[in-house]
């Protein structure tokens, strides 16, 4: 029904998962992360966008590790990325808390500063 090339493509390109599949997934996650970062007004939305980009980077590292080097270097980088994500989330929360602490000490009549 289909030419032979189609079946070859199906077998090699679609069914046999290779590095390219993972890289394309990570590119898509990266672009979605950028979109999320730019379009969200809420600060947490931006943080979620950053998480998407970090995950895209981890997928790259682990996939390269499996298909290109065979070592565990990529896994270790991914571990450090997870650590970084946790650290950044903690800082973000602390920044919000500080913002509210400051907000409470400010008079109501000076609220116009908030509309920056």
């Amino acid at each position: 029904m289909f030419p032979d090339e189609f079946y070859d493509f199906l077998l090699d390109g679609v069914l046999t998962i290779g590095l390219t599949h993972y890289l394309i997934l990570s590119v898509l996650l990266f672009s979605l992360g950028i979109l999320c970062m730019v379009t969200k007004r809420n600060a947490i939305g931006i943080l979620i966008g950053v998480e998407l980009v970090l995950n895209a980077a981890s997928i790259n590292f682990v996939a390269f590790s499996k298909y290109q080097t065979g070592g565990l270097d990529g896994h270790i980088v991914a571990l450090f990325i997870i650590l970084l994500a946790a650290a950044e989330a903690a800082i973000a929360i602390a920044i919000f808390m500080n913002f509210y602490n400051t907000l409470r000490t400010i008079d109501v009549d000076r609220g116009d500063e908030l509309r920056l």
Partner: protein
Amino acid sequence: MDVFEQALGFYLFAAVALFSAIGIVVTKNIVRAAVLLLGTLGGVACLYFVLSANFLAAIQLIVYAGGTLILIVFGVMLTSKSPFVVFTPSRVQIGIAVVIAVVLATSLCTLLLQVDWSATATDQPIVQSPQVKVVGESLLQQYLVPFEVASVLLLVVMIGAAYLARPEN
């Protein structure tokens, strides 16, 4: 794992991760976005299993999906009805961002499709059984300095978080 299992695993979990990510971008509700992030993180963790990075997958589930996500949900609670707005993108800016993201994605994809992987591909299998042991050993040998710097970084975050979030005198 044989070819079909790999393909099934990849497409299933990649779809979970990707559609959750699309949901995050599309939704206006920030709580929903935080919940959808769980889908992406979980999908990526399962992809690590498919990539035979078992230890990493476990860590991703425990630390990332278990810990970091909780922090993010706390952040959502703190900011959902607040004046804390960092950026205010206009409609034009959002349009430009969409165009840039689409162009970036398509151009990177086409670039990636042109690369011939077979030249440098490895047959060397990833260390299977005691993966934790190998990771642990290299963290204390080859990656000792980054490991220590990471601990200093966490110390800084701890000081900073405790200090920034302290109650007002």
